[in-house]
């Protein structure tokens, strides 16, 4: 498919997601609790876009590879070693703001 409004449905039905390192794609997949393999193309990417992918990889939440190592990574990776990534908690932000303004 070319462009869909949302890939959420497809992600939910998948057993493994292989994606570029865009933050939205990574976080949406992790939220659905799906294993994620991030393919990094250093030539195309902005340095700062890599920060999140690297950090997620370091934390054991995603697998990383580049275009040339894609096949071997798929063959050798063990999905059970992935650690779940807990979703963000906007409640903490709401609480923080409420404290500033004195709301209960």
């Amino acid at each position, binding site marked *: 498919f070319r462009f869909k409004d949302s890939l959420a449905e497809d992600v939910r039905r998948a057993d493994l997601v292989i994606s570029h390192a865009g933050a*939205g794609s990574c976080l949406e997949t992790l939220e659905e609790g799906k294993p994620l393999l991030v393919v990094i193309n250093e030539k195309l990417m902005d340095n700062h876009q890599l920060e999140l992918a690297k950090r997620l990889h370091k934390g054991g939440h995603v697998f990383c590879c580049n275009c040339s190592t894609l096949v071997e990574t798929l063959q050798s990776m063990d999905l059970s070693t992935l650690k779940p990534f807990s979703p*963000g908690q906007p409640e*903490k932000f709401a609480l923080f703001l409420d404290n500033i303004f004195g709301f209960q």
Partner: protein
Amino acid sequence: TGGHTTEILRLLSCLSESYSPRHYVFADSDKMSEAKIRSFEQKRAETFSNSQFTLDRIPRSREVRQSWMSSVGTTLYSLLYSLPLTYRLQPDLILCNGPGTCVPVCISALLLGLLRIKRAVIVYVESICRVETLSLSGKILYYLSDYFIVQWPELKEKYPRSVYLGQIV
């Protein structure tokens, strides 16, 4: 723009109706944010009956990777729009999360504060994508905001003046 809008709507998701009316300001070149915002506010109106919001556009302050020098020029141009807008809205709280658009808005609010017209609390939340480095907006607003929130401990270490609440989007 895009990811920023998604993040800021998540930040808003747990706010009570004390944070009303909400005035959304975004870049005139942004085609997608309006739909996301309307969708968010529509859902919100299902829970909070008196929910109010407005939408305003200002010229985009800076394109991705635009040079520093020309960015100053385009930001000044955006200021011509953001200043009367901020004066009209007189916000108590400005919540921003990184697109270039937030810089002229915050500068406008600071000016209004200096002129004793209206003092707004400026809360900046750096994107969750920023783990080791701040965005350009973040570097500018680190000293100008009242509260500067980062989402990774690495940034909290580098920028001690910041607030770390964990991942909040």
